[in-house]
């Protein structure tokens, strides 16, 4: 979230799309209810289903899964063509005025630079026109035909209410009602928030979808404003923290994983330190070297010296074009290219696309190590035939599977201390209440014992990669079970000489005199103590920022981009809710997203970006500088805007796809409030609240197919099938899409072969189709068939 849960209460309009907070984040949803009561905020819900969030909405618009960019593009068009955007904000705080080079264009579904053979874009035309110093040229009048503003206006001219209605399957009237409510926030003194979740991220065009939301919010002047922002409601307790700590192609703090072509630390720093694109850009990533050297000092301690590039070469380097994201990892495993997998608290057989492929991939491993609270389908993948024979007739019998598997009993939350980062980016420290049951161990102890054992073996016998393993620092007071307080202090960072804990990342150096395990968390454990455990109740701004409660990254900032809540001169857009104020010498209020003592006019408001302003147009993504509507990989209709390029041309497809003739309905997966992922089926209370898997069938389709609630049905796709009782409902209406009725089938996740309650794994149905930027699978909107079986 750019803002936070408590801040949602400041909104005047709440757009819930691609999320369902009343069901999946009920406690967070209380701030929506508070905004409605206290500010008379309007709640707009756009979703395929009339879900529990929709029951309390002021406006509900049913749409087809995978049509969200069309809807948001429609909002952009509506705002621009009806003059319902915050013009001064757009002029001052976005790249609307920047000029784009000659040669950029968009035609028949492709942006300029498409390489049909390589199936990727050459992005050289998606760049700014620059002057002799390398600064982007601008036209503050926004009238230049190659200004971002004019290009955007042109790009979205196609997204008329009629086109939106035809693609999304809603009525034009419903769209306009929603558009009118959402664009109320264009006024300087109104804020609107956007709450989303996996309904947006699980598409083959998910990153562009969120880009589209950011464009809408920038046009409304909502970024940096209390009650505004683009807010991801994250689905696991520490999904934010585990990302902050480096996953996929990242090191901690979103520093990029080294690549083979960055041979030295200097080359790495050079490649990852952007040049400012405007004279007033602060360009915060110019500090990359300080963050990186301090991380290397944390990893390699005294072994990291200036002479050896602080041990940079001990870090692994990926090939310059390698992609190791989920789809590629499991695809390679499936083809026999992997030997082993270590899984800490993750269940790929349940949550990866195409379950049978997951099972097949794990079957190719020599070994699998799983640390868990419960026996998961992943740990027990070799039991697929024994436990769910009807779904995996092609999987191997246990006797044929040669994978050696370890299932390690791990502690649960109540048995460990440490910090979780919530969606608001608040790091909240917790204490251990009890010991783990039986022989179960705390995860830090499992990791430490394993690490030290491997290192010992490598030292004793000799082996590959001795230096990277030997030099990784592990000098904890109890190396076999490091205290998490000790780890948290290392993550915060300290001076190497004095051992003084740092106050924040502003103190980091690139000369080896500071150690910091994650620059984003610097300030979380200072000389004053554990800031994450703070319980202060004061709220001096009255905006629900609670600066002394827990600790928020970065720098205890509660509203990201808060400098944009004021104009260029430092005057708040809305004086009644300015999160920060300039007193002539310093900023007060929330931790300013700005240089603490710089005058308002000194820099652009978006410090992390080389532009110094927010990007409506960006070359950062794989499939275009502006978000464009593409159909899901499997769709019942052709793309109404450009039928020849129906599907995201840059997306990754690694599975067999089905066609609408055989699989005419759209499948949707989602969570229910009663359960948590594939976890609570092991727990008595959730097992009571929703005891069995079911399929939600639209009423009219049920009539057509003579299906009544309780009848057993089979849902099948080109990958597999699931079976369960039907729940016939009018809450998932049939939609008119380009003149054709499209039915969507509701498929709650949560079940599996192991638990107090069992049922089919929903990902039996889904496909290995991935967003090209994030590598996230397309779980919303894939083709299925529906049959009554009894």
């Amino acid at each position, binding site marked *: 979230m750019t803002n936070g*849960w408590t801040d949602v209460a400041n909104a005047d309009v709440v757009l819930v799309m691609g999320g369902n907070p009343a069901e999946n984040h009920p406690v*967070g949803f*209380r701030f929506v209810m508070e905004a409605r009561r206290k500010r008379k905020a309007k709640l707009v819900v756009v979703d395929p289903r009339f879900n529990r969030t929709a029951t309390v909405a002021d406006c509900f618009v049913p749409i087809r899964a995978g049509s969200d960019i069309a809807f948001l593009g429609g909002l952009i068009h509506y705002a621009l063509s009806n003059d319902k955007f915050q013009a001064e904000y757009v002029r001052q705080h976005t790249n609307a005025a920047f000029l784009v080079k000659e040669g950029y264009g968009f035609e028949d579904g492709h942006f300029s630079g498409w390489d049909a053979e390589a199936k990727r874009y050459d992005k050289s035309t998606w760049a700014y026109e620059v002057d002799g110093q390398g600064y982007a040229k601008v036209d503050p009048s926004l009238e230049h035909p190659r200004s971002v503003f004019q290009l955007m206006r042109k790009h979205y001219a196609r997204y008329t209410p009629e086109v939106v209605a035809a693609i999304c399957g809603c009525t034009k009237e419903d769209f306009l009602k929603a558009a009118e409510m959402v664009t109320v926030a264009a006024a300087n003194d109104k804020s609107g928030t956007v709450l989303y979740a996996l309904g947006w991220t*699980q598409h083959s065009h998910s990153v562009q979808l969120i880009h589209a939301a950011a464009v809408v919010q920038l046009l409304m002047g909502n970024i940096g404003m209390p009650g505004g922002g683009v807010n991801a409601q994250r689905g696991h*307790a*520490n999904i934010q923290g585990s990302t902050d700590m480096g*996953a996929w192609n990242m090191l*901690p703090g979103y520093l990029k994983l080294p690549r*083979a*072509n960055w041979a030295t630390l200097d080359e790495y720093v050079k490649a990852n330190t952007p040049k400012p694109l405007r004279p007033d850009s602060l360009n915060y990533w110019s500090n990359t070297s300080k963050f990186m050297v301090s991380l290397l000092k944390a990893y390699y301690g005294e072994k990291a010296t200036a002479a050896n590039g602080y041990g940079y070469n001990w870090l*692994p*380097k990926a090939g310059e074009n390698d992609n*190791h994201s*989920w789809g590629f*990892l499991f695809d390679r495993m499936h083809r026999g*290219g992997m*030997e*082993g*997998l*270590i*899984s*800490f*608290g*993750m269940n790929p057989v349940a949550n*990866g696309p195409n379950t049978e492929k997951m099972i097949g991939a794990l079957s190719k491993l020599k070994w699998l190590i799983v640390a868990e*609270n419960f026996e998961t389908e992943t740990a027990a993948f*070799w039991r697929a035939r*024994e436990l769910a024979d009807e779904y995996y007739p092609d999987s191997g019998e246990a*006797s044929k599977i*040669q994978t050696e598997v370890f*299932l390690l*009993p791990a502690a649960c*939350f*109540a048995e460990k201390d*440490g910090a*979780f980062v*919530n969606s*608001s980016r608040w790091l909240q*420290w*917790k*204490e251990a*209440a*009890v010991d783990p049951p039986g*022989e*179960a161990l705390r*995860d*830090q102890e499992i*990791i430490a*014992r394993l*690490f030290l054992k491997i290192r010992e073996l490598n030292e004793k016998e000799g082996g590959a990669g001795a230096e990277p*393993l030997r030099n990784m620092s592990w000098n904890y007071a109890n190396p076999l079970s*490091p205290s*998490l307080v000790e*780890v948290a202090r*290392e993550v915060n960072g300290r001076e190497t000489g004095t051992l003084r804990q740092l106050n924040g990342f502003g103190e980091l150096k690139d000369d080896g005199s500071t150690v910091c*395990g994650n620059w984003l968390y610097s300030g979380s454990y200072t000389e004053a*103590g554990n800031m994450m455990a703070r319980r202060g109740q004061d709220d001096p701004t009255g905006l629900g920022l609670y600066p002394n409660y827990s600790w928020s990254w970065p720098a205890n900032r509660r509203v990201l981009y808060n400098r944009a809540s004021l104009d260029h001169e430092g005057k708040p857009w809305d004086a009644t809710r300015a999160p920060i104020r300039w007193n002539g010498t310093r900023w007060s209020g929330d931790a300013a997203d700005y240089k603490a003592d710089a005058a308002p006019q000194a820099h652009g408001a978006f410090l992390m970006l080389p532009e110094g302003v927010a990007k409506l147009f960006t070359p950062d993504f794989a499939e275009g500088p502006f978000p464009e509507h593409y159909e899901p990989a499997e769709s019942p209709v052709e793309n109404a805007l450009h039928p020849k390029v129906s599907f995201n041309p840059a997306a990754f497809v690694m599975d067999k796809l089905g066609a609408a003739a055989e699989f005419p309905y759209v499948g949707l997966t989602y969570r229910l409030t009663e359960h948590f992922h594939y976890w609570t089926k092991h727990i008595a*209370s*959730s097992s009571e609240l929703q005891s069995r898997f079911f399929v939600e069938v639209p009423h009219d389709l049920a009539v057509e197919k003579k299906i009544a609630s309780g009848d057993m049905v089979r849902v099948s796709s080109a990958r597999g099938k699931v079976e369960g009782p039907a729940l016939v409902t009018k809450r998932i209406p049939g939609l008119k899409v380009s003149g054709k009725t499209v039915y969507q089938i509701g498929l709650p996740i949560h079940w599996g072969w192991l638990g107090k309650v069992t049922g089919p794994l929903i990902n039996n149905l889904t496909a290995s189709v991935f967003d090209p930027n994030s*590598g996230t699978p397309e779980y919303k909107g894939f083709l299925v068939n529906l049959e009554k079986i009894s």
Partner: protein
Amino acid sequence: MDGQMNRRGFLGSSAALAATALGFDLRPAAAMVRELKISRTTQTQSVCPYCAVGCSVVIHTLGDKAHNVKPAIVHIEGDPASPINRGTLCPKGASLKEFVLSDRRLTRPLHRAPGSSQWTPIEWDDALTRMARLIKDSRDRGFVAADSQGRTVNSLATVGMIGGCTDTNEVNYLLGKLRFGLGIVPYENQARL
């Protein structure tokens, strides 16, 4: 900064209306009802492990921390001091005790030999020795010190790691050290699914 508080702290800070706040004394009724099951508990601050709203909870345990006594969880309830949840919880959070005490929790390491159709209990030491052997051997086979162009890469791409989103920052940091110590490149996370 102590995560544990006394009973007065919990009852006093509760959003509950104290007897006097209701304007009359509720105590006469107390004599007739069952004893409050959290009246003698130790309370520990924690955070719900499910979604990322980040609700604070208070874990009530019995057991006086004497050397030979293991504390037992008797109740888990929302923490009123949190500005996020102010004592409230969703149906998953409201039954966290059922999670911690679930009879399906794993309590000992299990091993499945190649081709076997069952789990066999294994001692931790044996499991660690065996896992370290398998990992080292895979690493010895798969570790690439320099790529085909002779560039130092020190990477291992035939072993993967996944997970982390259910655990703390600090455990994730340690997982990172394990990952980079071994040189593992493929590392995925629930956050990205």
